[in-house]
């Protein structure tokens, strides 16, 4: 029973953090600096989440590096999210298989 209390607390706290600002913040931000911060924020968040985590994401550095290069290459070619994601996975998978043959 205690476990369900734990689960309830986790779900409630996590939801309220997301919900309160989205539901009740109604101002249009006009300050140019703040607008800039909000514009750049998603890229900054993604950057720090991707590097260095991508290099350990497959549990082994060579396949992760091959997958990263594949993602970088297709990203430079502006391919879609799913294409880049699957290409990185496939490249990492093939690299790990080849590595296993050595």
């Amino acid at each position, binding site marked *: 029973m205690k*476990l369900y209390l*734990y*689960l309830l*607390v*986790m779900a409630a*706290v*996590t*939801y309220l*953090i*997301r*919900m*309160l*600002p*989205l539901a009740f*913040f*109604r101002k249009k*931000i006009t300050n*140019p*600096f703040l*607008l*800039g*911060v*909000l*514009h*750049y*924020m*998603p*890229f*900054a*968040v993604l*950057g*720090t*989440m*991707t*590097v*260095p985590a*991508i290099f350990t*994401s*497959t*549990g082994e550095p060579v*396949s*992760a590096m091959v*997958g*990263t290069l594949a*993602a*970088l290459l*297709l*990203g430079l070619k502006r391919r879609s*999210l*799913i*294409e*880049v*994601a*699957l290409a*990185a*996975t*496939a490249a990492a*998978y093939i690299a*790990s*298989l080849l590595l296993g043959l050595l």
Partner: protein
Amino acid sequence: MEAYGYRDGLRDGLPIGLGYLSVSFGFAIWAVKQGIPGLELVLLSGSNLTSAGQVAGVTVIAAGGLLVELALTELIINLRYALMSVTLTQKLHPQFSLLQRMLAAFFITDEIFAVSSTRKGLLTFPYMMGLGCLPWIGWTLGTALGAFAGTLLPAALSAALGIAIYGMFMAIIVPGAMEEKGVLLAIGASVGLGLVLRYVPVFSFLSEGFVIILSAVFGACVAAWLKPVRGEGDA
């Protein structure tokens, strides 16, 4: 300005869902080892939809921690969602009702935020629902698969799936950095501070959630200061 519908959301959510499937698969295998039963794990994933917060939460639960401790841990690790929610309010379509805002809020994760906030134009309620759908299914289903059938997937494949989500991130940030020097600067500054905070031992007390908040705010501020955004834009 273009507005997007449910199907656009589904399409954008597919890579996130695939990435979540693999990440939650791994999470479940780990969490079962911490002593949480499979059914409760699926409930946990379905009701929380967050990775770092769930890992921290399971750690606290497994250690028999206090409810207050659990609540505080979740608050700190997930504080970044509040920041993301505020950012998203600036892009919501005027037709978004209060109830719709409350529903859409459930699906705000790092990845869903990243995709929706970098979409050009305004965000509609159907788009946000479509966007949240497959990630939620992927996250919950992956947890169930990991908890009940963790050993069935070939190890090499489940390992390779770990990179899917980051590949998707690359698909967002690489073109962004090509188009705008400011974006490149924001990424560079954010990654730079992130590396310092993660690897310089003095900062080892910082949780991953805090590292993300600090380095992202820093990167965005540096870019906003050196490369101001002109006019209204669609920030």
